[in-house]
């Protein structure tokens, strides 16, 4: 796809263009990476978009009082939202697509309440002071992109080199074996949801810094591409394989598709149809049907 567009217009493949392309998808990438953990253990998180929305509002409101601390506050809020999803899913045995939908509703309410249902703006000086470093560039590469790659690297480290990551993998392979190995499986399932909430909040934070404001609908339209990025990257809905690096690739694919569509003047509405269809194809081809006794 990249090459196809590249052939039409050589400028498309220029380094600057590619870097801009990448920088554009930083919030999406971070959200998708967080969601990867949940899908990796065989769940789903439909609350990411609402959590990101909420965090754009909270970040904007908290900025004048807390400065950089606003960032920490927002991330903590995401962590809490994710933990609630996790607890509801594991302890109350509510299917994750319902529990995260419900938590998403709650997050949306918080965002609407906090914002008074209107778009808020960050004070330029305050933003510059607290998060200015995020919008800068190092050697022509946006700091946000470097930051995002560092976050991906961290997530990758957690997934492949740390105990929780290993347990996530085992959970994706099958929960009974984890329990029978004497691991408190529920805790780690909750952790996966908590990470997803945290990453979604971080995505919202970066988005709001970039747009210098917040609103309860700012991150609208993130959910579908984020899920697509994870699944197209090769982490199946049944979990256990794939992971963070797959999602990096998946996000790049999404970014390129978007940019190409823009380039070919395909309207934004077409994107949604396209991604919806791609999602079905990705699920159908990657899902591990041996793990599903009945498909409901």
């Amino acid at each position, binding site marked *: 796809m990249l090459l196809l567009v590249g052939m039409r217009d050589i400028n498309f493949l220029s380094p600057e263009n590619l870097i801009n392309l990448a920088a554009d998808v930083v919030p999406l990438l971070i959200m998708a990476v967080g969601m990867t953990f949940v899908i990796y253990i065989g769940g789903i998180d439909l609350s990411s978009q609402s959590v990101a929305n909420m965090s754009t509002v909270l970040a904007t409101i908290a900025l004048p009082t807390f400065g950089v601390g606003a960032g920490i506050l927002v991330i903590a809020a995401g962590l809490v939202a994710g933990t609630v999803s996790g607890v509801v899913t594991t302890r109350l045995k509510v299917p994750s697509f319902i529990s995260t939908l419900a938590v998403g509703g709650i997050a949306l309410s918080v965002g609407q309440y906090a914002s008074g249902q209107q778009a808020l703006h960050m004070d330029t000086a305050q933003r510059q002071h607290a998060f200015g470093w995020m919008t800068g560039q190092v050697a022509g590469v946006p700091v946000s992109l470097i930051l995002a790659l560092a976050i991906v690297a961290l997530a990758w480290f957690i997934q492949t080199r740390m*105990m929780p990551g290993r347990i996530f993998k*085992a959970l*994706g392979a*099958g929960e009974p*074996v984890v329990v*029978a*190995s004497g691991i408190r499986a529920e805790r780690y399932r909750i952790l996966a949801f908590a990470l997803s909430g945290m990453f979604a909040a971080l995505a919202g934070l970066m988005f709001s810094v970039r747009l210098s404001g917040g609103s309860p609908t700012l991150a609208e339209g993130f959910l579908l591409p984020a899920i697509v990025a994870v699944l197209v990257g090769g982490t199946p809905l049944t979990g*256990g394989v794939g992971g963070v690096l797959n999602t990096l690739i998946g996000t790049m694919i999404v970014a390129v598709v978007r940019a190409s569509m823009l380039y070919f003047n395909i309207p934004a509405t077409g994107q949604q149809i396209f991604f919806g269809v791609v999602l079905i194809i990705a699920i159908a081809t990657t899902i591990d049907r041996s793990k599903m006794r009945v498909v409901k």
Partner: protein
Amino acid sequence: MFELVNVEKRYMGVHVLKGVDFRIDDGEIVGLVGENGAGKSTLMKVIYGAVQHDAGTLLVDGAPVSFRSPRDAMKRGVGMVYQEQSLIPNLTVMENIFLGFEKPFVRFGAINWKKMAEAARRQLAKVRLDIDPGTITARLTFAQRQLVELAKVLALEERVEGKLVILLDEPTSVLSRDEIELLFSVVRALRHRASFIFVSHRLDEIVALSDRIYVLKDGVVVDVMEAKGADISAIQKKMVGRDINGEYYREDRQAPYDPDRVLLELDHVEIAGQGNDISLTLHAGEVLALVGVEGSGREPILRTIFGMLRPDRGTLRIRGEPVHAFSPAHSVAHGVGYVPRERKVEGIASGMNVFENMTLPQMRNYSHAGVLDIRAERDLAREWIGKLSIKVPSEYADCGNLSGGNQQKVVLAKWRSSGSEIILLDHPTRGLDIGAKEDVYAMIRDMSAHGVGIILVADTLEEAIGLSHTIAVIKDGEIKKWFSCQPKAKPSLYDLIQYMV
């Protein structure tokens, strides 16, 4: 008349049915007995169409038939009363009876409930069950549901020509004395409508109800006898009747255990919901076998020791320490390891490699501040691959792709390497070929020699006798009899069977 001639069946290379001949006349009640793994359930599945045989013929009234599905079999009058009941709990009794056959009751798209209820009442009368056909099935007692299930099969009568053949799979296993009597009288009274194939572990019931008895062993019908005057112990011997080969179970390597080191103690423990009273002691180096028929209550004991079930009463001590927190995490932390019967579900994480599987319960020992030391993990895996001669290309091999025997070795290595001193083996040789079984036996001897205490629920009685130091015979949840099991002085199969049935 329903007949099987020279029926063969293989599952993935295993010869399950070896030329079985089976005949049932109209109005006859035939008993079918055999040990676990004798091929009973496969034979039944062939009869009611859930499984297709590889060779041989099925004859209904002398005409060859082929069943591609249970529905096919039902169309020829062969119906099954399932052990794990097949009624849908949230539907009414009449809906269950006519599920999939609602057409005769539909007029202009709407179901005529009155007509269906009448028809259902007629079926229920056959089994002498006087309940409202509109009752939600979940509200019935187990015995009532069993009769409804029978009525459902009997409803075939009006849809097929000829007589019915009805399979009863362990129908009495959860019924009370009175309920069993009721069921038997119903079955006897129905002989003019159908013939029955009756499968049960309870040989006295088989003898009491049947006309003829088929004894199945290793996929072969070893005897067909008249039930009248049949001797239960003779049947039992025909079912097992295999010599115990001391060499096969490495009896020469059976060393006495250490009576002074108690690893595990159950002190008047009442297993959750069983209302029983279990006391036992496991010593270092001891192999303690729990023996009993299917459903006698062996697995719940294992699951309680592993912390998956919380006992209702009594004390469980691990190395003298009473256990209060019942969870697998607690048990594992205190040196209990569990080799589950469902190897692919609870034993092995398929999709994960050998070292990832082995360190799963002991990751804390292979990590610093949560960061895994993968080099050390790989070293560990290589060490155990060598020790147990696990056949894998490398420690990176996906355990889901290994053979059953090698998977079982990985599971055993997982617990051995994590230093478990109490190992619970639930059917450790299930589904393994002979060579792999011998490897497992050798590993059990190794573990004993290292002072590990083992509680074994074996696949066969021979295995339990051959491997263990001590045997506890369990029936209806209680320990009925203890046997000491020293080499050269082992109890016979018959000694155990007496207390099992």
